[in-house]
């Protein structure tokens, strides 16, 4: 009896396998991630909003390069394998950042001089959305009027203004964020960036016209789907989007610890200005 059912399946398979294997660039995984997110309804904070409180972190290689990239040697020879670049599927939806031609050239120049130019190496604030996937945890402290994003790297912090929403008074590294709730999703609209941060260690950059709209949608008790739409007419030919899951730290006593890296880069930045011992 088993064999007949098996034969039926075989016939169906022959039809199905005829389907062309042309791989759709949008990863099926991301589609799967979104579909389960809609179904999930997060527990509520006392003031009735989806509860995003917690310590979160991404598990991808986006901080090395937000586009797909093979593994590669460390930019600093002596770090050997510990400094080497892991491969990554990339987080840019559609695979490619729609740079304007001159901008793609600049990105390649940035990449060539990344040890000198990447602001992360100098312990400068990471900017947005790099602060999300920089590879260190950040904590969400969610209150009614303000939602705080507190990052371990260099103590970078973002205030999401949920009540009085204003224009950015001045340019800044972490931008000026106004937030709102759309059903289960926290939507954060950020402008007022300076043009100094990078999106990753591969030289992907933006101008001071950058406008980022982020969406935090809980997809399970311990994961959030994070999406960011990037718009910057001076650098990109059209808006583009990235998405990835955020994973919650569940270990007991989990906490954001200090990574006050200014001290770690002073020799790098100012060492050449040391007083030379009298010859």
């Amino acid at each position, binding site marked *: 009896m088993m064999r007949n059912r098996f034969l039926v399946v075989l016939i169906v398979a022959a039809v199905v396998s005829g389907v062309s294997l042309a791989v759709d660039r949008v990863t099926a995984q991301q589609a799967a991630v979104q579909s389960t997110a809609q179904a999930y309804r997060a527990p509520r904070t006392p003031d009735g909003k989806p509860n995003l409180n917690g310590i979160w972190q991404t598990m991808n290689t986006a901080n090395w390069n937000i586009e797909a990239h093979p593994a590669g040697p460390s930019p600093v020879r002596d770090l050997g394998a510990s400094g080497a670049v892991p491969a990554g599927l990339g987080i840019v939806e559609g695979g490619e950042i729609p740079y304007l031609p001159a901008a793609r050239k600049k990105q390649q120049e940035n990449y060539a001089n990344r040890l000198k130019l990447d602001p992360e190496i100098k312990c400068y604030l990471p900017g947005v959305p790099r602060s999300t996937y920089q590879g260190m945890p950040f904590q969400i402290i969610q209150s009614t009027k303000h939602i705080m994003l507190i990052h371990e790297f260099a103590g970078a912090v973002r205030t999401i203004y949920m009540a009085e929403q204003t*224009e950015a*008074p*001045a*340019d800044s590294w972490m931008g000026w964020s106004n937030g709102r709730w759309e059903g289960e999703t926290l939507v954060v609209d950020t402008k007022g960036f300076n043009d100094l941060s990078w999106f990753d260690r591969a030289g992907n950059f933006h101008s001071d016209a950058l406008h980022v709209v982020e969406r935090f949608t809980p997809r399970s008790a311990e994961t959030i789907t994070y999406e960011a739409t990037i718009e910057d007419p001076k650098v990109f030919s059209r808006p583009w989007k990235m998405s990835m899951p955020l994973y919650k730290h569940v270990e007991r006593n989990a906490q954001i610890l200090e990574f006050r890296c200014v001290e770690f880069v002073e020799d790098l930045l100012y060492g050449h200005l040391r007083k030379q011992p009298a010859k």
Partner: protein
Amino acid sequence: MRMKLAVGIAAAGLLLGVAELHAHHAFAAEFDVNRPLTLKGTLVKWEMVNPHSWFHIDVKDKDGKVTPWMVEGGSPNQLIRMGVTKTTVPVGTELVIEGYQAKDGTMKAVGRNFVLADGKRLFLGGSAGGVSDPAKAK
């Protein structure tokens, strides 16, 4: 980060952690007390950054040659609370800046006084007016 006022606190007896005892003359280590100058120029950009903001101005000399200068001012944060934004001081504003040039002789200075073309002092927390009275701007 020259917190001159912090030193003020030390003087006022409110002893902070040792870290706070900023040698007041740190600024004099960066800028040369023997190179006082007065710059008259038009504002190219006011970098509202910390720990100190920087006024980028173009200074035209007698025969019209323009040199870009960078002049150090105070943290913009309190002004922002008083309603100042990056458009409060429009690009092109005429400024007369009294200050001291950087020790390394580059086109950098600290602005001990920022005065507008009409003689009014810039900002001064709104009491002496300024480009736009921040109190009104709020």
